[in-house]
């Protein structure tokens, strides 16, 4: 099979699925449906972006599903409760520390001088400043309930720290990623339940009040769950922007873009940027391909690994906030087993679990194939049970195709035939 065909196999498979959708369900191609699919896949997509980075380093992150649940709990409590709760005690310090670490890292690369001691001083200063800024910004909000913007910032920052903890255990203590993230998965779930139960009103934190309305402050949450970008554009953008885009395909597309989908696409874009343009991305491939070579080539293997799990943690917490917005509630059980869907999407996209190989575009394809299949089967009225069964088959088929198994089988059969021909020919 020619190389060009093998590489475009991925895209061909989406087109096939897409075409199958058009044939199988008349509603499939409608903008509303497409928008709904994008919205449905966005959570899995965001998790899969982080998972791709992790898997490229030959690691795995099993904690993302439970981290999502923890984040949804935190987000709901921060938005609704107007007092210091366990969620505040957890999120604010964690976010402050994360912000501090990020600031110190930036200061180290930008303001680093030849003298190690001076760099360290600059970094300490940056850490203190950033941590203090986050604390000063967040603490007063605890009495009034947090704004949606601050939840969108604080919660993922806390996830960054939690993921970083996994990363430290994996790199510094030389533990298996599978075990560490398995432990993190369990602990995150436990923490989510502890935090959720601490306010005394059960595990589920709904955003609705006793009258069944979403309070006005919390109501702005719908912005990050809007099915159409247009619905929340006017309040965000100056008027001229909406006028400058002429009536046309692009504008319709933009207006119909679901906001969670936009988040997903942004994360995906960032992931592509990391993998294709950043030195950090190149280091991910090198570490996944051969850790010893990477280390001897002067790559800070431990640092890169910590960072990659931190990023995965941050993305899973972001997905948690979006999930909270979508279901108008936060609960520890949200996102159970989501890690497996994310891993499946990444693997369908051609990223090797052995590390060193993989592309973000493949992950997008994997996520879309997943989403479209579920969508088509739902439109056809196929039951969820059957859907799950078929999904399993699709995963295996996709990986077989990826690994070139089918091509090998074909070429072997071809040789068999040729051999037989040569035998039957009289010599």
């Amino acid at each position, binding site marked *: 099979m020619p*190389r060009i065909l093998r590489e475009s196999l991925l895209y061909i498979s989406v087109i096939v699925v897409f075409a199958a959708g058009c044939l199988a369900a008349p509603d499939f191609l409608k903008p509303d449906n497409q928008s709904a699919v994008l919205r449905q896949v966005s959570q899995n997509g965001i998790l899969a972006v982080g998972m791709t980075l992790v898997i490229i380093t030959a690691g795995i992150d099993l904690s993302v599903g439970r981290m999502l649940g923890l984040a949804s709990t935190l987000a709901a409590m921060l938005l609704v409760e107007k007092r210091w709760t366990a969620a505040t005690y957890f999120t604010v310090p964690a976010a402050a520390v994360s912000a501090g670490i990020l600031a110190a890292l930036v200061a180290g690369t930008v303001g680093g001088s030849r003298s190690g001691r001076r760099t360290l001083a600059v970094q300490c200063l940056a850490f203190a400043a950033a941590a203090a800024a986050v604390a000063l910004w967040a603490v007063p909000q605890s009495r009034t309930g947090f704004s949606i913007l601050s939840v969108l910032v604080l919660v993922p920052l806390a996830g960054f720290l939690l993921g970083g903890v996994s990363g430290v255990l994996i790199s510094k203590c030389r533990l298996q990623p599978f075990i560490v993230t398995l432990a993190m998965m369990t602990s995150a779930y436990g923490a989510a339940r502890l935090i959720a139960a601490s306010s005394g009103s059960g595990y589920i934190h709904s955003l609705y009040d006793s009258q069944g309305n979403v309070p006005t402050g919390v109501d702005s949450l719908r912005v990050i769950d809007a099915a159409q970008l247009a619905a929340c554009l006017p309040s965000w953008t100056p008027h001229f922007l909406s006028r400058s885009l002429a009536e046309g395909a692009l504008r319709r597309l933009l207006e119909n873009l679901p906001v969670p989908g936009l988040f997903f696409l942004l994360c995906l874009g960032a992931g592509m940027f990391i993998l294709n343009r950043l030195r950090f991305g190149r280091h991910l491939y*090198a570490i996944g391909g*051969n850790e010893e070579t990477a280390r001897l*080539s*002067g790559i800070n293997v431990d640092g890169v690994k910590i960072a990659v799990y931190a990023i995965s943690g941050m993305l899973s917490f972001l997905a948690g906030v979006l999930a909270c917005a979508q279901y108008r509630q936060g609960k520890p059980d949200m996102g159970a087993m989501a890690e497996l869907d994310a891993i499946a999407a990444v693997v369908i996209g051609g990223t090797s679990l052995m590390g*060193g190989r993989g592309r973000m575009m493949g992950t997008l394809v994997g996520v879309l194939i997943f989403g479209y299949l579920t969508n088509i089967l739902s439109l056809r009225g196929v039951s969820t049970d059957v859907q799950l069964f078929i999904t399993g088959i699709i995963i295996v088929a996709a990986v077989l195709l990826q690994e070139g198994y089918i091509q090998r089988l074909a070429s*072997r059969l071809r040789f068999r035939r040729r*051999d037989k021909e040569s035998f039957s020919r009289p010599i």
Partner: protein
Amino acid sequence: MTFPSMILEARGITKTFPGVVALRNVSFAVAAGEVHAVIGENGAGKSTLMKVLSGVHPDYEGELLLDGKTVRFDGPREAQRAGIGIVHQELNLVRDLTAAENVFLGREPTTRWGLIDRRRMNREAAELFARLDIDVAPDQRIGHLPVGQQQMVEIAKALSLNARVLILDEPTSALSDRETATLFSLIHRLREQGVGIVYISHRMEEVFQVSDRITVLRDGEWVGTVPTAQAARDELIRMMVGRPLTSFFAEDERTTPDERVILSVENLSLAAGVEGRRTRMQNVSFEVRAGEILGLAGLLGSGRTEVLEALFGAYGDRTQGCIQIEGRPVVIRSPLDAIRHGMALVTEDRKASGLVLQLSLRENMSLPSLRRLTRWGMVDGARERRLVDEFIERLSIRTPSREQRVANLSGGTQQKVILGKWLAMTPRILLLDEPTRGIDVGAKAEIYHLLRELSLRRVAVVMASSELPELLELCHRILVMREGRAAALFARENATQEKILHAAAPGG
């Protein structure tokens, strides 16, 4: 011409990989009781031919005949069953299993209940070892054996299926002289028993010593087959490279090092048991001047590799000792520190620690230089491509493109990619561990010339090698290691192979 005694014959074999023709219409035959050597430069197709013979590559064009009958092996197992055993260049043993378990891997004798019959397995392995005169206990863990004995176990494994053809791919590349001698006597005994042996090597002396016939391959094509008795060394080299090769020992382009000391090492030590290595390293001290090539000689396991790796920070802070670069004391706790101080290390094992096989030539070569090619965390693609192209040109690396995956390149080319990778970061101090291991004559000569050029550019070079002629030719001084200590230091003028061997021998 098919003699009745030909066991295995290949006719008109052509094997293509995507983008490369590895073998073009090659014919080859091995008779019973014959040692048939196959020589050729890297990328000549020797290993590919062996993989075709042993069923690793089932999709080739042409014909294989076993005892005059056409066969096509669908995999290595079928070839094994047909009596073709192969010992690959890289050892394929499970380190945590015993010698007997390795020999019987995948076909363990079982009891009536389907459990492994450990007693029978050990007994049969012991018989096999005794027959081959191999001095290894069957219940010994493979990981604990020296490489030479591991090799013997590998050969025993290949022969345990009553192999009639034994293919040895570069069997001596990791062996000491004594182990090589043991291997040769084993080969002679097998020949007397009527086993056909295919022997691949880069070392001409060995080929002359051990073989009956020699087949030369070049660029995937058959060049000729000659009886060893009638073969002349120069003629063979000419056949291999396609042109007469002037000996690199002849021309006199000696370089003289400066007085200026670049690297000074005092009492470098490494505690025992670090990273599973049993060799300790104790109080090794030396100096390297600008433009000097310092050789590190010594037997396998004498601590040559450890000196280089410890210098490069590979053991973190478990290394003790004082390192000065250009007169200033430096602390090196990681390879990153070493690189920042302008050091580069070309490791012994290309695949395990030199390259990232999944990545392209470009990505491999720019890896240590990325820091320099980056702005705001982003890799400057244009500059990276320019740098890589420059070194592809300078080292005349033969590759279809810079985007070629390094896994698909030949051994010599891979070695040049590694050299290019380190030269691209313009090192002040270049550490080399067996830089010419397993590569062909042409590539070796190119690497020697490169080292001379680096010496002229005033780079300090430390080079460990187990090939003494190479050290004697290239190095200004040679440090001999013995059991983790510096045993002797010779200037080139008064160094001889005998003196070095004497200093390197344990207990000497």
